[in-house]
């Protein structure tokens, strides 16, 4: 119980720091959002003072609030989940933009993330258990390869071969151009079809990491005395591999999995850029490019909260599955 309270206190402190930094950092960026909006029009001509002025009025940038006042009203907004209107997509409210983008990110990255973890770790257990067999060498060597591939390279290659040359899959986008998002079979089909290529590339590049971590942990665990004991007791191989080996070898991977689930909410900027996927990563990228403070704050806040919460949950989960930590806590 004391452990839990301590964790909670740390959680609250972390949240406060993160939310405050979230307020401060965008304001340290040089430049002025109005000018950034207007530099988009390069080639359409130089920007006049009156144009900057008009945009400043529109965005309310000339409100002469002190930093403290802004900070206080920012906290109020945090609790009411009201982040005002985006600069880049003015007059769209930040909450609506995030609401549109979040499901795409959660579904694509959530499913591929969990699948990657499960399949990768599962294969990791198998390769470690069958250490030295041909299966092990093939999987380990290929994972070492795929793990070092830069994601964008794999993605571009997949787009070029599967999308451009063979034309099996669409080159980009989350769904077909002539569709309006809705819950009917036709749209879901299209969304599923468009998600195959991004999902495939994410899996290809993420599996290796999970596999190798799991395999290394597992190999270390295999030499433990309790493994020999379990086998000596005459337990079945599967049981020894999964309940004795896997469970213990899983612990470090679980922590990184929890962290990954937390950051997943922020989307994956590269994946979403390459595939023009309508998720949060793209939204964040656009926000940063355009110094869109309200939008940046909204997205970062969600990421921060999720990362901190995921960490907290991972901590608690560890207590549940690792008896050693439980003993320390007591």
């Amino acid at each position, binding site marked *: 119980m004391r452990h839990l309270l301590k964790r909670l206190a740390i959680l609250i402190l972390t949240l406060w720091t993160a939310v405050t930094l979230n307020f401060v950092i965008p304001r340290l960026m040089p430049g002025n959002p109005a000018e950034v909006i207007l530099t988009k029009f390069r080639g359409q001509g130089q920007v006049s003072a009156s144009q900057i002025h008009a945009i400043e009025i529109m965005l309310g940038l000339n409100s002469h609030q002190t930093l403290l006042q802004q900070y206080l009203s920012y906290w109020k907004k945090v609790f009411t989940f009201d982040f005002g209107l985006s600069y880049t997509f003015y007059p*769209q409210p930040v909450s609506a933009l995030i609401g549109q983008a979040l499901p795409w990110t959660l579904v694509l990255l959530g499913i591929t993330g969990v699948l990657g973890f499960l399949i990768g770790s599962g294969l990791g257990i198998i390769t470690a258990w069958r250490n030295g067999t041909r299966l092990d060498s093939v999987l380990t060597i290929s994972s070492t390869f795929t793990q070092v591939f830069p994601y964008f390279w794999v993605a571009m290659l997949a787009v070029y071969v599967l999308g451009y040359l063979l034309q099996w899959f669409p080159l980009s986008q989350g769904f077909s151009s002539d569709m309006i998002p809705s819950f009917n079979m036709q749209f879901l089909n299209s969304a599923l079809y468009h998600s195959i290529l991004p999902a495939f590339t994410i899996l290809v590049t993420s599996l290796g990491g999970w596999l190798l971590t799991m395999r290394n942990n597992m190999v270390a665990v295999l030499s433990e005395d309790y493994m020999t004991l379990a086998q000596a007791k005459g337990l079945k191989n599967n049981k020894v591999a999964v309940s004795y080996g896997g469970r213990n070898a899983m612990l470090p991977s679980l922590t990184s999995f929890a962290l990954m689930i937390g950051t997943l909410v922020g989307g994956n900027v590269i994946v979403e850029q390459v595939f023009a996927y309508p998720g949060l990563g793209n939204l964040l990228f656009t926000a940063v490019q355009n110094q869109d403070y309200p939008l940046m704050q909204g997205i970062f806040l969600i990421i921060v909260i999720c990362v901190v919460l995921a960490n907290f949950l991972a901590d608690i989960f560890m207590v549940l599955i690792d008896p050693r930590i439980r003993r320390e806590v007591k």
Partner: protein
Amino acid sequence: MKSKKLLVFAILALLISSILTGCSKSTTSTSSKSSNNSSTPGAQPMTIATDDGSPTFQENWNPFSVNARKGVAWMYETLYYISSQTGDETPWLATSYKWNSSTDLVYTIRDGVKWNDGQPFTAKDVAFTFNMLKNFPALDSHGLWTTLESVTANGNTVDIKFSKPDTPAFTYINQIPIVPEHIWSKVDDPVQYTNIPADGKTPVATGAFELQKFTPYQYTLVPYKGYWQADKIHESQLIFPALNGADTVDMNLSQGKYDWTQAYVPDVQKTYIDKDPKNNHYWYAQSAASNIVMNLNEKPFNNVKFRQAMEYAIDTKELSAKGENGYDAPADRSGLHLPGQNDYLDQSLEAKYGYNTPSSDKALSLLKSIGYKKNSSGKLIGPDGKQVAFSIEVPTGWTDWITCTKLIKNQLAKIGIDLTVKTPEVAAWSKDLGTGSFDMSFTTGLNLYDPWFYYNLYLNSSNAHSGDKNAAGNYEGWKDPKTDQLLDQYKSVTSDADKKKIIQQLEAIMYEQVPLIPLFYNANWNQYSTKKFVGWPDAKNPYATPTFAMPDVEMIMTHLTLASK
């Protein structure tokens, strides 16, 4: 056993993917059916690649919004069209205009124009639009109401009165999209208004096209059948795909998927023209000069002789050819946009100074006259005994500009100057320009015909940095009472001869004082296909600038005709 399982799995995967591909193909074919509601026989759909998705579109049809979808330019119209290439004026929603005095401008409004909801378009709509800008300064992006006094409708005329002479405002007045009073008067806050119509409807406008369908990755427009120039419209449908992701513009362009686009293509000849030399074309219409700005509040640029030396030392022809692949022609050192503004040119200035012919010898002899020397290792030493070194900054990622700065570095090295190239983020760069914290940089060009705009933007002291007010255009900090007076005087003249006299005095200031160095004419990227449509503006017939903005597009759309088969 294992291999059998794998095989089954592979077949299953193939099956699933083929079913899915099948589905998506069938959906695209149904959508193209709906596009056959053409008004002229043989009309064809046109795909226009100009609107960036990030990655998807947010719907916004408010023509005053900076974030409006680009399609609004095909829907809303303006009073007059002024070509920024030639200065030619074409009556549009107004049939004529007259300056009663330098503070009174009267338009006669076109008869028989109807909004696409059937209501008649009147002078009242025009007056309403302008007065709305007064009530909502956030919409008045040209700052019209700094000099306007009143806008009133009388019968079929609109009377625009100024509080002080401001004839150049004419150009901006003709860029204001006219909106219907019967719709917009009911809008509480037109600044936040997104003008999204009810399902199946279109925003109410007078223009040639109206909204057919909007989806996050694409929208389509169809001709408005009651358009007052409907006989000149030969497109059955306009398709605006969202530009984004791996589905790049270059790739689609080279595959001939677009009829019209505005991409920067590194080697347009190879990636586009060579794919279909008969139909694929580009015309990169010039805008007014962009410039090299020097910080005039700083040594050594506060010395006019030093600036003149820079005119000779920097070879803009090389910058144009190597930095911009020849797409941006070098600018005339008067700052005029030639050949369109040839009438204003005072040729005696170039004959006297000859800046357009670079010469490092002339630069060096000028520098010697003010106490600069080359030392034994070829470095230029200033009168203070220090080596001359300064920096030039351009935004990161603007690769053409960065190439140019590297060329300038070499050119200045010839006369012994050390130039450092800095590439900050766009935001940091624009802040440095605004606050005068730079040595040397570049500015972009303007798409406006009247040469006053160029000189006013870059030379008017009110656009310079002062106190906590950031510079807007006059980044170099040129503060000269004579320049300001000429610019102000220009606002009250209406005759062409008087205008020319004032402009030529400004040209003289450019040559004698060198407040900034004209660099090259910015190109308006523009690639088009003549497979389906002909009559595009080009160098031989520059009737419009392909800016993909209001009011240029309406001009172009009414000039295109079907290609004969």
